[in-house]
């Protein structure tokens, strides 16, 4: 006995048939009835919870197939309501016509069979509900994707950005090209990748972005390629990796320079054969994924140093797109500010002085730093009860026109030298690695303050999946640059177990 109690509307001029069907299926379904067209539409207007329409093809005493005429009307006005026609006429033409007009199935009165009819009712109803759910799901996915794209707008009208957008659009027409996006941290590499995705043949497919540096090395292979149940301790079930999740779409691998040799080999294999093999599996899986990689590192230098495979590098640089640092496209700063302040007219938001300061600042952290500065300024303005943001609301480094990290930028970070070591100071980075670690830690410090030390919020603000990733990141920095943490008391306090000064 089915417990579903779907609600079926029978439309038939034969009231005896109504009564018989109701009786026969009284335990399985709820029924309502109509004997003519007028009653049908009246019922549909009054009640919206019908799961199925059972429609007699004839509907009156004449031979005219009035029910047939009703099918397109019902289907167009009530697309969620599946229709089964009930007929005494078994002419193939009639049934085919009815199906073409939108009926989902047909039943013949002559051929009444309780089990068969029950199955058809249920199948059609549940099939329709599934389709409806799928439609809703797809709509939701599209909506979220649109929201995501809205959350990552590629803002900029400077000549450099316009040119990059043009190139990205062209590249997006080649759905199998591997793209390498380079640029300093915070220049919007993910945004550019999303822009590529949104404008290309893969826009209906998934977009997955992975920050490779945020994932523990031991888990990286499994995270990317998936694993089989029992492949390692803790692998209690089969898991799909990011590659599988991005099938028919784009997978962005950020911080590609941070992966070890093992992952490099596997990535190279994928780029050559389109095959992956989950950890613990003996079966390859063929996938259709466009790989977009990103790095702030100098990969060619890494190749020379033996830290990065030359063959992989060759593959990755099939198409290189370099994002300029923010300071190289100051024209875009007002636009970006307008976006983050959610107010295109900046005079309504900030004083001229504050704007000037922001325009002149060097923005070592690029757009990410700008975004954080906006949040900071807004918070400060609220605390100080100011209608307009003035200089006092801005982060001190902007006011001082000095970044916390003294910028020693010698040439292009993606292809240039490592750069001469600046004068050492407790806060001065010895090398580019330290420099970026400092930037990152500074950001995390500020966010911890801003977010009242709620780590989850901080992780999200940075763009990490969860607090574990954040924790891992901090640990990595501490492992490499423990001396830097003296400058970050909030981090030290929040991560006492890691930061043991």
């Amino acid at each position, binding site marked *: 006995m089915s417990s579903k109690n779907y609600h079926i509307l029978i439309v038939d001029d034969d009231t005896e048939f109504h009564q018989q069907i109701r009786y*026969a299926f009284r335990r399985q379904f709820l029924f309502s009835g109509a004997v003519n067209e007028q009653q049908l539409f009246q019922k549909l207007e009054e009640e919206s919870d019908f799961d199925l329409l059972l429609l007699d093809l004839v509907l009156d005493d004449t031979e005219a197939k009035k029910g047939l005429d009703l099918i397109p009307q019902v289907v167009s006005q009530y697309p969620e309501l599946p229709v089964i026609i009930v007929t*005494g*006429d078994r002419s193939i033409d009639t049934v085919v016509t009815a199906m073409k007009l939108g009926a989902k199935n047909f039943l013949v*009165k002559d*051929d*009444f069979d309780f089990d068969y009819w029950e199955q058809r009712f249920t199948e059609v109803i549940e099939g329709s509900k599934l389709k409806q759910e799928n439609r809703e799901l797809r709509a939701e996915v599209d909506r979220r994707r649109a929201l995501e794209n809205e959350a990552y707008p590629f803002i900029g009208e400077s000549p450099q950005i316009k040119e990059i957008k043009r190139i990205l659009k062209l590249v997006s027409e080649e759905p199998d090209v591997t793209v390498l996006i380079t640029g300093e941290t915070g220049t919007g590499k993910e945004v550019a990748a999303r822009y590529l995705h949104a404008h290309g043949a893969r826009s209906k497919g998934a977009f997955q972005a992975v920050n490779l540096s945020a994932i523990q090395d031991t888990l990286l292979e499994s995270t990317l390629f998936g694993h089989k149940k029992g492949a390692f301790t803790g692998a209690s079930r089969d898991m799909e990796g990011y590659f599988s999740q991005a099938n028919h779409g784009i997978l962005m691998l950020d911080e590609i320079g941070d992966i070890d040799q093992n992952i490099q080999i596997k990535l190279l294999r994928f780029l050559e054969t389109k095959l992956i093999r989950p950890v613990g599996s003996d079966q390859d899986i063929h996938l259709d994924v466009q790989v977009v990689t990103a790095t702030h590192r100098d990969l060619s230098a890494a190749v020379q140093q033996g830290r990065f495979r030359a063959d992989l590098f060759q593959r990755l640089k099939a198409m290189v797109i370099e994002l300029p640092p923010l300071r190289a496209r100051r024209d875009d700063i007002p636009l970006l500010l307008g976006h983050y302040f959610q107010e295109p007219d900046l005079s309504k938001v900030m004083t001229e002085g504050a704007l000037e300061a922001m325009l002149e600042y060097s923005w070592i952290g690029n757009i990410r730093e700008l975004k954080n500065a906006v949040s900071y300024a807004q918070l400060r303005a609220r605390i100080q009860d100011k209608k307009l943001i003035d200089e006092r609301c801005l982060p001190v480094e902007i006011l001082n026109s000095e970044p916390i990290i003294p910028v020693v930028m010698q040439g292009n970070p993606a292809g240039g030298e490592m750069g001469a070591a600046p004068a050492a100071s407790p806060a001065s980075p010895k090398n580019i690695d330290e420099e970026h670690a400092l930037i990152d830690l500074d950001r995390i410090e500020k966010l911890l303050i801003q977010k009242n030390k709620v780590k989850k919020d901080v992780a999200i603000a940075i763009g990490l999946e969860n607090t574990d990733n954040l924790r891992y990141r901090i640990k990595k920095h501490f492992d490499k640059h423990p001396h830097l943490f003296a400058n970050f008391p909030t981090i030290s306090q929040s991560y006492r177990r890691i930061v043991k000064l």
Partner: protein
Amino acid sequence: MRIVLLVEGGRRAPQALFTQCAEWGIELQRINLEQDDWTNELEKAYGLMLMLPTWGANAYLSPVALWQQYLQKAAPDIRLIMASFQSDFQHSNHLDILRLTDYSTSWWEQCQLVGHMEELPPLIGVDLSEKLSRFFAGHGQDSIVAVLSRIRLVVQMASRELSKMDTPYDEIYRDLVEPAELAQKWREWRNRWINYYPLFEHTPIATRLKQIAKQTDGVEAWMAAGGKDEEPLRDGSILQVLNEVRTRLQQIENQYVVQKLSHTYR
């Protein structure tokens, strides 16, 4: 001697027809369509002759199309001969009974095999193909199958309630059987049956219809009583009869009427 089977169709073939056939080297054999085994005669037959139009139900009838359909499957190499009193019947297989001496032995050679017969000109008589279609037609007041289906619907539902759901019969009777007015429906079935049954006496389906008539006699009493008696429902005998009748009717329909859809051909 080649054998040609004769269906007199409710009329009396003149002796001269038999005599003339013998002169042509043909043995004309009457067949009795009421006997089930008449089909055995087809194997050895050179031809099958119909006296047209046949007579039944107080009218002249045209069963040719049904015979043609039947023989095309059962004996495609046979010759279907149409013998009548019509003078202007234009077909190579037509035999004018009043002009038998105009035909020769070679006429038989030129007769078309039923599997390759050219289209028939219009024939006088109630078109039994059309009647048979109406017999099965899905809607309207002609269809005898429609009436039977409504009866079967109720019996099927009632049987299921009784045997699978253990519903008390007085409840089933009250809620399903009594409102269905089986006795009246059965009278309607009878009414229509008598309208059709006699028409097909001289057709290949005569035997099957006779079997149906016999079977339905078996449920007559129960139906006439409006289905008050629980036992024949419980033991499945009523439903069995109705299902068997339905199967037979479907077989006839499959064979003779334009193919219809059914999702539950059993």
